[in-house]
């Protein structure tokens, strides 16, 4: 196992200096000779067709190079599979500029390319487009009757029922039937989606894209435009947040590439903040629960039925209904997940997709049931604690959730809580304390990495993964430095480049686990090679030594049992007259071993709200989030991930709402003034606890991933706290003051 020179220490971000000095370059910030600027024109209608595009006036302006649309597009691929990417749900992916059809509001219909940004923006105003409107369906509530189960799944299909939930429900002493709803929400990373395409001549391009996996952009470009792999290099060294919005290549990539190929010029296309509402979002979802418990509060029946929005052209799906089986012990469970097709763009994975939704509904409903059964919400959860995953019937590889409860409750002061709603007051503020728990799957995916150790002692490790702010650069540097016993300053980790070894998309909380395992494996392999080098020398003290009998510390390889037998790693290269030594690995998850265990991280969140009794204003004054996430590679960046999850939970509970106007068929609050995300004043005391958890199953480094576990149980804890404060159950998010008056 790994020793702890670097892993587990709060190393500062290795890319920190670049970020605070303003030298970190994001997709729209790369230069190219003669760079041109593209501005996207969005459809003014929600559904129908384009009758006519008149770009004459725009094209007459000096400096306007072209106005692209379906009328003058490049020849494009014919088959749906050419447009699919690594995160496509089943269906027919949207094809920009393919024909005259309008399928959703704000669909991109034209791209104006000019010598300057301002000119392109102005020229876009001069393009006249005539449309023929058709009726559309954007009213979710009215379409629930048409919901269907997808024919093809790219998510976990709802687990088959076990026991008999309907009968058990009818016999249960405590019964609860409720509906929970949350609206569509948009990712809104601070950096708007952008692509800069540098024309390299001879049909070759270099692309700087905002993406959570450069390989996905490359695959998409190759498929759509028929380019060869060697002609498309994609880089994304820095990504200004994404939260899922960069899992799929977005249409600005298509536009910039097409324009570059046609004009044989370098092109940059940046979406506007308004256009950030024109592609994927967290789907609005209605959840119905029928929960039954015995008189003593023991769970007897769970029915969880979900209706979630999708587009008319793709079956977007997420794991919303797996959570009852993961989080509660119950003998009778029945689950369903159906899709409601609307004339919108396809929803898109947004931080903890499915989990954020399912756990919200489940944890609020369970809080209601706990009250019905007369139990403290924490006591209720302890009573119904799941020792195995009910969906699969297999045990957890590790589950320190009880310790999360214990440490979280203690830190929060939960045991001083008065159970009755409206029983805690401070001046004209009603005080509410609520809690919820949650889980997120700890996945490991296949990933590759390579490493080069130079004779000057510098190590370069690389993999085509990403860092969207999650800390990939830093933790991979720590893992590599740890494994080969080097100081952090001597290690450089490279990512975000299709020329590097293959890595999965950066999402799903699996990067630390997957790429981290590959980084460790490649450094171990390099270590083995160093041992072999040592053994080649006659009379070497390492001659008969096995790899697990050496360790790497202080830039030396040494014997575990006698650290005085040591040699500098650079000396090994020098003795063999080598400039450098290389290794490459492909790290596969131990699937057979892993499949015997349910692998999840867990969380328990305790929240305090203060609600003004007269005005209904809500403040989240305290949050304690206790996390069981396996091995914590860097407690500081890990804490930041969980803090971010808490902030997202506050946003989800109280603020975030993409308002769909069913008359217009479009999101009408499509900017940051009208779509509210938490600001500094919305966030007060937040405490993060990592409980100790050892797990040797999830992957060789024992880390479970933290990008998503931090958000899942925050919004329900806040909603439950609001009930405790006010006695009002608001079952439709966001919980705004009007709903409390």
């Amino acid at each position: 196992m790994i020793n702890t020179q670097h892993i587990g220490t709060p190393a500062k971000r290795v890319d920190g200096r670049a970020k605070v000095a303003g030298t970190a370059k994001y997709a729209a910030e790369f230069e190219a000779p003669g760079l041109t600027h593209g501005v996207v024109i969005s459809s003014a209608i929600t559904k129908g067709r384009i009758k006519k595009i008149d770009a004459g006036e725009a094209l007459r302006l000096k400096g306007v190079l072209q106005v692209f649309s379906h009328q003058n597009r490049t020849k494009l691929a014919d088959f749906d599979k050419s447009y699919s990417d690594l995160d496509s749900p089943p269906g027919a992916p949207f094809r920009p500029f393919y024909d005259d059809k309008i399928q959703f509001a704000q669909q991109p219909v034209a791209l104006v390319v000019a010598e300057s940004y301002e000119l392109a923006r102005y020229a876009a105003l001069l393009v006249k487009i005539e449309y023929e409107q058709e009726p559309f369906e954007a009213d979710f509530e009215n379409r629930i009757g048409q919901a269907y189960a997808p024919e093809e799944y790219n998510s976990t299909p709802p687990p088959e029922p076990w026991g008999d939930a309907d009968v058990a429900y009818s016999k249960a002493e405590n019964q609860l039937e409720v509906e929970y709803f949350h609206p569509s929400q948009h990712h809104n990373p601070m950096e708007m989606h952008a692509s800069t395409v540098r024309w390299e001549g001879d049909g070759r391009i270099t692309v700087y894209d905002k993406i959570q996996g450069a390989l996905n952009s490359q695959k998409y470009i190759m498929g759509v435009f028929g380019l060869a792999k060697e002609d498309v290099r994609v880089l994304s060294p820095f990504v200004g947040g994404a939260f899922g919005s960069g899992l799929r290549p977005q249409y600005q990539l298509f536009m910039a590439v097409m324009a570059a190929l046609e004009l044989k010029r370098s092109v940059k296309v940046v979406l506007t903040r308004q256009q950030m509402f024109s592609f994927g979002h967290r789907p609005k979802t209605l959840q119905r629960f029928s929960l039954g418990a015995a008189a003593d509060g023991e769970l007897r029946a769970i029915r969880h039925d979900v209706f979630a929005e999708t587009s008319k052209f793709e079956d977007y799906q997420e794991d919303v209904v797996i959570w009852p089986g993961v989080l509660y012990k119950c003998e009778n469970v029945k689950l369903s997940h159906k899709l409601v097709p609307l004339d919108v763009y396809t929803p898109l994975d947004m931080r903890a997709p499915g989990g954020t939704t399912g756990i919200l509904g489940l944890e609020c409903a369970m809080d209601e049931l706990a009250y019905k059964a007369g139990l403290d919400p924490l006591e209720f959860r302890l009573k119904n604690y799941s020792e195995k995953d009910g969906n699969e019937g297999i045990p957890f590889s590790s589950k320190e959730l009880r310790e999360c409860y214990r440490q979280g409750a203690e830190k929060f002061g939960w045991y001083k809580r008065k159970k009755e709603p409206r029983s805690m007051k401070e001046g004209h503020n009603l005080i509410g304390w609520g809690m919820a728990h949650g889980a997120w799957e700890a996945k490991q995916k296949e990933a590759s990495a390579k490493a080069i150790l130079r004779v000057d002692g510098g190590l370069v490790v690389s993999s085509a993964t990403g860092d969207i702010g999650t800390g990939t650069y830093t933790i991979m540097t720590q893992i590599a430095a740890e494994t080969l016993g080097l100081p952090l300053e001597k290690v450089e980790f490279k990512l975000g480049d299709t020329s590097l070894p293959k890595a999965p998309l950066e999402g799903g909380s699996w990067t630390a686990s997957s790429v981290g395992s590959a980084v460790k494996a490649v450094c171990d392999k390099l270590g083995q090679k160093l041992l072999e080098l040592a053994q080649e020398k006659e009379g070497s003290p390492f001659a008969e030594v096995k790899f697990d009998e050496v360790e790497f510390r202080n830039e030396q390889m040494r014997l575990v049992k006698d650290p005085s037998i040591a040699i500098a790693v650079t000396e090994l290269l020098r003795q063999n007259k080598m400039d450098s030594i290389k290794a490459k690995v492909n790290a596969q998850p131990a699937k057979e071993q892993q499949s015997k265990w349910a692998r999840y991280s867990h969380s328990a969140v305790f929240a305090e709200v203060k609600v003004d009794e007269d005005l209904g204003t809500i403040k989240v004054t305290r949050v304690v989030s206790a996390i069981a996430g396996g091995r914590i590679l860097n407690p500081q960046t890990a804490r930041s991930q969980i803090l971010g999850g808490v902030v997202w939970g506050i946003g989800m509970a109280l603020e975030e709402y993409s308002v769909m106007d069913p008359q217009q068929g479009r999101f009408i609050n499509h900017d940051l003034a009208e779509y509210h995300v938490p600001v500094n004043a919305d966030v007060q005391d937040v405490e993060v606890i990592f409980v100790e958890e050892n797990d040797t199953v999830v992957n060789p480094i024992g880390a479970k991933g933290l990008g998503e576990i931090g958000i899942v149980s925050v919004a329900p804890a806040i909603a439950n706290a609001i009930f405790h404060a006010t006695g009002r159950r608001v079952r439709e998010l966001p919980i705004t003051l009007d709903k409390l008056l």
Partner: protein
Amino acid sequence: MSSISKEKITLKINGTEQQLEVEVWTSLLDLLREQLHLTGTKKGCDHGQCGACTLLLDGKRINSCLTLAVMHDGSEITTIEGIANGDELHPVQQAFIEHDAFQCGYCTPGQICSTIGLINEGKAKTLDDIRDLMSGNVCRCGAYSNIVKVVQEALERSEQA
């Protein structure tokens, strides 16, 4: 209209005086990012709603997307690229690293300029003041509690000075 009129202006940017000919429709933000390649100042909304483009204009923090470059003839502008003293980071920059007051880093230059501007204003006295007066700078990664620590420290430093 096939060409936009241009004006000659002088801006002192990060300590260096520059004679520029700017098109009158160019925002200060776009001038910096697109023409002077000072991309440290970020564009997050172009509507003054997010604060990513915050810089210091004559010592005051402003949203550079909401103002035209041509309006600032003779002004002194400090962007994130001009905050450090050569290789030595400004204490606020260093504190952002120490407190891990960012994740993706995209709002960070604006947060740093806003912190320095806030201290210059001298209005913030309490924790709640800090939270309110830093609320024009959105951080979607949610690093607020760490940012607040940086600002508190900077405030204490300025009071001691």
